[in-house]
């Protein structure tokens, strides 16, 4: 049974809704969201837990800015990120060509972890599988993170992919996602154009600190592209009372017809060997 206060808060929230863009369920109150007396979400309430006692990461999340999309190394010190000669050459070419070869501009998927940094995504957490549903602006994209005990794939035995192969585990209250099996020559950052090789191993550590906030700590372990692994921490914010929107690239032909580019010189592949 709901308390009168909860009911009042819900009604207040509903009264605030009319007049906003009513498309899809963009402003529908998210069930299960703790609320303040004025009906606003209480983002400082404790993080919810699942029936098995784990933190429940479910919900829509977003960085809320493009800082880490542009530069995954934002805030790190010089020297924290050291590119190999191959990665430095690839990055220089991308910058010299003013980013026109970024696959995202061609409506191709953002890789991992860049896809976490761009737009809203929904986490759907179940005991054996956690799904990441990404809105993006170039097509809705999902990731599957398996928590059923299966081992990580040996990436060199499997087809490299945009999003890799992910398995998850719990380290206390932190959800740790290991991903390997990426395509060579991905983009980790937009403006800074940091590349990754097919040896990339991404470790994402999600820790929900309260209802409205989650720390995402990302480690880039890619010995072909970086002299040593590097790590950055990105704050995520819960997005209450909204919903994912459909986004497929149905307008791309109307845009591409105006592009003026020189054919891209092929980026050199990463050095062979050393695959994981």
């Amino acid at each position, binding site marked *: 049974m709901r308390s009168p206060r909860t009911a009042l808060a819900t009604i207040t929230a509903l009264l605030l809704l*009319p007049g906003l863009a009513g498309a899809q369920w963009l402003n529908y109150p998210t069930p299960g969201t703790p609320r303040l007396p004025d009906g606003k979400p209480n983002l400082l309430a404790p993080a919810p837990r699942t029936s098995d006692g784990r933190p429940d990461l479910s919900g829509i999340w977003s960085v809320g800015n493009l800082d880490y999309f542009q530069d995954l190394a934002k805030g790190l010190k010089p020297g924290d990120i050291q590119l190999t000669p191959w990665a430095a050459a690839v990055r220089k070419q991308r910058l010299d060509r003013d980013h*026109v070869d970024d696959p995202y501009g061609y409506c191709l998927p953002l890789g991992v972890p860049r896809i976490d940094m761009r737009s809203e995504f929904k986490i759907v957490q179940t005991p054996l599988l956690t799904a990441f549903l990404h809105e993006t602006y170039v097509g809705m994209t999902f990731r599957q993170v398996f928590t059923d005990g299966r081992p990580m794939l040996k990436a060199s035995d499997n087809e490299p992919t945009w999003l890799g192969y992910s398995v998850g585990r719990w380290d206390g209250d932190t959800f740790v996602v290991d991903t390997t099996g990426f395509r060579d020559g991905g983009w980790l950052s*937009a403006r800074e154009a940091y590349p990754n090789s097919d040896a990339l191993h991404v470790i994402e550590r999600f820790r929900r600190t309260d209802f409205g906030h989650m720390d995402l700590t990302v480690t880039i372990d890619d010995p072909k592209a970086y002299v040593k692994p590097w790590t950055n921490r990105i704050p995520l914010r819960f997005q209450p009372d909204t919903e994912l*929107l459909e986004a497929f690239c*149905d*307008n791309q032909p109307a*845009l591409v017809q105006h592009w003026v580019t020189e054919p891209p010189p092929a980026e050199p592949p990463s050095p062979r060997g050393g695959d994981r």
Partner: protein
Amino acid sequence: MRMRFAVVVAGIGVLLAAGAASAHHSYSAEFAANKPVKLTGVVTRVDWKNPHALFYIDVTDESGKVANWGWELASPNQLMRAGWTRTSMKVGDVVTVEGTLARDGSNHANTRAVLLTGTGKRLFAASSQEQGQ
């Protein structure tokens, strides 16, 4: 309707604050950042599609000749989250648009600001330009 306008106008701040939120990476392949353009015309079509919405206006020059221009916006999702709806700009509305010309020399531009001429309302300031892109 008044409330809807208020929301859209409030959304301007959101989009300006987001700045590059409407970004896409083909920007420098498509637009000449050093070629600004400002035109007034009548909306003939609005394509509410990804990765960037487009709208078209008929522009009449001093000799009476009419040319149709395409204007690129942010993604519909970004516009919607800023309070924009598919009816915020309608076919037949007279608008003054500022932006950046396409590099291919066609009647195509990136949108920086839109003014609804009839009401003086500035609808939004969505741009597909991303600083440094």
